[in-house]
């Protein structure tokens, strides 16, 4: 009865649905609806619910490569081991440092670049094309290019500093803990700014020109216009960008694989890379799964936090 699309009881979710016979046009419509939606839903379910359930189950067992025949139930031991491990806290620390740098940089630069694209100079058509390029190429490719630029023996960055007389000899930027993370951050922001710029450009172009005219008539200066009109009106876009960039920052993996391999001394081993290491290098699947579950929970918690902010901000704006 439930599956036939509509029973006699009006559902609270579907206030306008009228009770009809099980073979009328309404029924046919419901059948069409499920036929078109279910392929997507089932495909997504197979590749999200099952893997996540699998990770949950694995995380409660001891699963290591060299003992495939025995996978004893160990309760929360994997979680405790993971959380107590020194690498867990340092990799989260690095991840949060990275995200704390990447999100504001990508957001603010995107905001600035969007204004530049909106300024309509002779360069604008050219910039509109150029800005898409870093976004279009695979992340590993941008990582390879930047790793070569920061290369300690032949890199262009060293070459430039040397030619300008700023350094006496080439420095190993990617082998020093602090500068390595900065190099990855630089490459990451270079790749992310195009998308944030385009999203901000969209938001800027949606602001009615009359608002600016009215502000000008009232004698508002540029800072006041920015603060009172532009920033509040692009706020929904800002929140989309901040949520998205936080997500992308937390799961950063591709750049680390090609630029630093998580090194030096784990300084760029962000949480995703640490997870990759514990599964595919250390082959401790139980701990890897526990780590995966924790990462998924952390990600959802972050997003929930943002969505809560988003909701309260929306009330504030309107």
């Amino acid at each position: 009865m439930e599956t036939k699309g509509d029973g006699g009881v009006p559902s609270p979710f579907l206030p306008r649905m009228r009770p009809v016979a099980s073979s009328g046009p309404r029924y046919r419509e419901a059948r069409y609806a499920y036929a078109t939606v279910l392929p997507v839903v089932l495909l997504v379910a197979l590749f999200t619910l099952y893997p996540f359930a699998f990770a949950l189950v694995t995380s409660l067992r001891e699963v290591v490569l060299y003992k495939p025949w025995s996978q004893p139930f160990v309760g929360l031991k994997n979680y405790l081991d993971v959380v107590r491990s020194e690498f867990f806290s340092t990799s989260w620390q690095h991840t949060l440092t990275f995200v704390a740098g990447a999100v504001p940089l990508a957001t603010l630069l995107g905001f600035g670049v969007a204004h530049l694209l909106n300024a309509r100079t002779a360069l604008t058509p050219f910039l509109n094309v150029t800005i898409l390029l870093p976004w279009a190429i695979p992340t590993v490719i941008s990582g390879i290019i930047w790793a070569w630029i920061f290369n300690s023996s032949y890199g262009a960055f060293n070459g430039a500093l040397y030619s300008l007389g700023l350094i006496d000899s080439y420095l190993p930027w990617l082998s020093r803990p602090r500068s390595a993370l900065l190099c990855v951050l630089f490459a990451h922001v270079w790749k992310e700014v195009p998308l944030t710029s385009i999203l901000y450009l969209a938001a800027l172009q949606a602001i009615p020109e009359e608002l600016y005219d009215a502000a000008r008539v009232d004698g508002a200066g540029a800072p006041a216009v920015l603060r009172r009109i532009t920033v509040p009106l692009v706020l929904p876009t800002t929140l989309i960008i901040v949520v998205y960039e936080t997500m992308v920052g937390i799961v950063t993996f591709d750049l680390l694989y090609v630029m630093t391999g998580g090194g030096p001394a784990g300084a760029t081993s962000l949480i995703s890379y640490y997870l990759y290491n514990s599964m595919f290098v250390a082959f401790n699947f139980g701990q890897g799964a526990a780590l995966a579950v924790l990462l998924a929970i952390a990600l959802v918690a972050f997003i929930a936090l943002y969505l809560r902010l988003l909701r309260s901000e929306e009330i504030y704006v309107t």
Partner: protein
Amino acid sequence: MRRRAALRAAIPVLFGLGLAAYILAPFVWVALSSIQPERELFRVPPHWVPRQLTVDNYRFVFTGRFPAGYEQAGIARGRISEKARDALPALRNSTIVAVSVALVNLVLGTLAAYTFSRLRFRGAGPLYSFVLASRLLPPMAVAIPYYLIVNRLGLLDRYAALILIHTVFTLPFTVWFLTVYFRRVPPDLEEAAFVDGCTRLQALVRIVVPVAAPALAAATAFSFMFSYNDFPFALFVTSTIRSQTIPVIVANTAINPDVSFGVVAVTVVLTMLPPVIFALGFRHYITRGLITVTTTR
């Protein structure tokens, strides 16, 4: 006063030039690296304007002939990774997978999004939220289970495995994007068609699809790019050149410390060509689609 106005007009142009340099410098650098002999690349400090140009690196990737000078140095084996020669078949693999993903997205995504945007049915809200929320799952968290699922389906190292996984990771965006877009298409035309006896599917194909063609083009472009650019999934479920995609081949060539960067630069340039051409070709749809969707309340 006039000088001041001129200065004011010059500021965005100057910033624009700075932006263009910031974005383009890495592309120029890698393109130049691909057409210089190894000796030149390793010069300290570099020649900013190349003095010697060569197509040897390209010839190596396309024909397998060692660039002159590499063999004499006795380091040919280490310096030139044979793996770089897998770039061409890998490009083919990437294209096959990405085109398939884009087509599957186009068909499944359009059907589902149209239903979500127009029809009321039990569970519509939760199902829609479920599809969108699935994107929150971090890729690395499902790496091992994906490997096992793909293995159980007998699809390890096959195109189908990548197509399935990429489709699952692109569909949420496609469905969201198209649902938001379809909601903006006025339903009047379809209603007229229903009066004429059209079914839902006919109305979708004959009336909505032509109107929403720019959005469909954008959705196709997004899914193509995601699939083509994906690295972690391709790394986990492929193992040989039979299905390895170009990011995997180039990444694993590049992280070899002995590899010749001239050769890597060639593979990097070749890898960038399809998505760059795609992005520029679909530029208007991509930007306009994003504008429409993100500014809809």
